[in-house]
């Protein structure tokens, strides 16, 4: 069994605190002046948050992660631009660009992905999500009906894969249309991006069974995950496909369990959660909603390096092969996990693990 660790690039801000006040390290365009007037600030306007994103990406590469999830957030920087921006500075990382089917033409998306594949040695992957609620979607010029969201992703992927892998390719659907399309010549024969999907419910699971390479679950207990893996495996089998499984989960891992719980509590309080306002524990070491506002993950593993490693091994035994992790601040924590957790899990799962070039 081979597993992959995916780190997250904080496209909408990062911070040391759990209160979801997004900091943008390196951002100098705001009026705030962090130093007192009595201290020289040499930074000027010459760099901004993109330089920090670049550094997080490099950190993930150096710390031994296999990939980078570049999440979509309406408040943040655009995942496609960020993907291109970190492409040249990273050597090994798979780059998972998250976006929505309302992005635009699926042919255009596929064509942009072909260029990225050409320039990165085929390191590009997609995560296509459904987007926010109706109000958020309308703010993004997307007036699709609720019931059309999954069918639209279905068509989007059908067309994008079609023009990448076949020529000529013709398709006429409700949302997308193409006539004698398909990439040829220098653009032909490129690998279609690995597809990560995280749809929910019967419709979401069916979409994954049809199109996904990896279905990504939200954080849940090991038992829950095992059960869902079983169901989705059956669906994929019905569709004549095999599917890999991912888990989107945050981590607070420290030298001791005590430290981890102390830090997790501090985040919990900083995030504005009311004391006694519901138990954050889903199961042992799994906290709900600890950093959802700042990272998007619905659950966080809290414990010592050994405990967190063991839990990841348990998830792996339940069928998870892609761990989509994050922790704040993303730069420092990439090194921490790369040094203290990833090697333990890897040596346990596949003792001869070597990262593929």
């Amino acid at each position, binding site marked *: 069994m081979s597993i992959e660790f995916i780190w997250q690039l904080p496209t909408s801000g990062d911070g040391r605190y759990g209160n979801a006040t997004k900091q*943008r390290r390196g*951002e100098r*365009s*705001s009026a705030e002046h962090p130093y007192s007037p009595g201290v020289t600030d040499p930074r000027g306007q010459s760099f*901004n*948050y*993109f330089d920090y994103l*670049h550094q997080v990406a490099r950190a993930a590469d150096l710390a031994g992660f296999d990939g980078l999830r570049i999440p979509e957030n*309406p*408040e*943040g*920087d*655009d995942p*496609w*631009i*960020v*993907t*291109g*921006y970190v*492409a*040249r*500075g990273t050597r090994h990382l798979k780059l998972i660009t998250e*976006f929505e089917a*309302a*992005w*635009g*033409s*699926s*042919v*255009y998306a596929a*064509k*942009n992905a*072909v*260029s*990225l594949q*050409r*320039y990165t*040695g085929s390191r590009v992957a997609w995560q296509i999500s459904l987007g926010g609620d109706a*109000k958020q979607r*309308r*703010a*993004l*010029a*997307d*007036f699709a009906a609720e019931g059309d969201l999954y069918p639209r992703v279905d068509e989007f992927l059908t*067309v994008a894969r079609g023009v990448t892998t076949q020529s000529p390719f013709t398709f006429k659907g409700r949302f*997308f*249309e*193409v*006539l*004698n*399309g398909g*990439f*040829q*010549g*220098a*653009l*032909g*024969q490129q690998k279609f991006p690995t597809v990560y999907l995280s749809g929910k419910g019967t419709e979401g699971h069916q979409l994954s069974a049809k199109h996904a390479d990896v279905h990504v679950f939200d954080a849940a207990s090991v038992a829950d995950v095992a059960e869902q893996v079983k169901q989705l495996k059956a669906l994929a089998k019905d569709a004549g496909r095999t599917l890999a499984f991912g888990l989107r989960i945050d981590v607070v891992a420290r030298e001791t369990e005590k430290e981890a719980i102390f830090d997790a509590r501090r985040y919990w309080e900083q995030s504005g959660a009311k004391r006694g306002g519901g138990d954050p524990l889903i199961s042992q070491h799994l906290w709900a909603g600890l950093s959802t506002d700042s990272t998007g993950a619905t659950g966080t593993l809290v414990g010592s390096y050994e405990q967190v490693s063991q839990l990841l091994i348990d998830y792996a035994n339940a069928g998870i092969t892609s761990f989509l992790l994050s922790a704040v601040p993303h730069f420092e924590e990439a090194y921490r996990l790369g040094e203290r957790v990833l090697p333990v899990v890897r040596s346990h799962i596949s003792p001869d693990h070597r990262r593929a070039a």
Partner: protein
Amino acid sequence: MTIDIFWRIPTHGEPSSHRSRTPHRGDWFPGDDSRRKNGLAGSGEDGFNYIDYLAEIAHAAEISGFQGGLIPSFPMTDEPWVISSVLARETETFRFMIPFQPGFLNPVVAARMTASLQRATGGRALYNIITGGGGPAQLWWGDSAGHDDRYGRTTEFLDILQGVWKGGPFSYQGKFYQVEDGGLAHPLSQEDYPEIYFSGSSDAALASASKHANYYLSWLEPFDQLREKFDRVKERTHLLGRKIKCAVRVDIIARPTEEEAWEEVRRGFDALPKETIEQYLRSDGGDSVGAARQRSGKPTTLNSYKDLIIEPNVWSGFSLLRGGQTNGIVGSYAQVAERLDQLVQLGADAFILASTPHLEEAYRVGEEVLPLVRGSTSSPALRAVG
């Protein structure tokens, strides 16, 4: 006001001279061994690929004093959004001119991509808005809108882009797009709006351009025809209470002497396969009015490169040597500079120049031609004073 001069990034692949149509440089076509023969950088196993060559050109253009470059997008080429974002970090002054068709992107997504690219490059992104040649080519891209509809859509797209740019909340009810309380978030909303170069020669295009463009961009046409076109654009824009500048996109072959320049053309022309010439004589370009305007002076037979000289130093066979535009300037360094100054006098405020191979020619044109261009100081009024 001074004249802005851009270069071009060869997204079509790059041969080593006008005499070859085999784009072997830098692994543009990594799967094709015949194209790799005598090429640069091996099979991709060394970690190099075409973006490494494009980075070389971008640097050459920076060092040679160009503003930046146009990064053309066609079915056979790599995409400018990708090239710009990938090269953002390793360039300093190079401005990325991104051509795209508004119908391909959700306008709010496009606004955010652009603002992020501005952040990634320190404000070096700008647009070349194109609206598509039409016909089956447009359906290849997955776009089924008709010609005039496409310009209507372009106008709506730019309305929304501008509306959400400074943060909104912005709402819009159009025929093609709707938005409800959209707007870029801070700090993306702090970025400069991109300069817009607008292409398109039809009435529908001019209507859209006059509302939104900073520059009206035309291929090189016969000089009198171009003067008339620029006057018309400026007049229409003036009626809307706006100002617009004009730009010319032109391939050049500049050599120390005129003789050498034409010799380069002759050798390129004589090396053409017969089929290329036959295809050229038959060709048709969908419903694009600009393409038709370029074709208008096309001869019915073609025996020598000289049949394609349409006025002094202007040769209309460039599309034979390399896909793309038809008319270009051929001459000595001084003649090319002089022709560019004549274009300034008839209304051009900016140029996008190109010559093959783009790497060496960026240095040549930067060193030999640009210093001879007088630019805005070449206007007749100023000359009379000087």
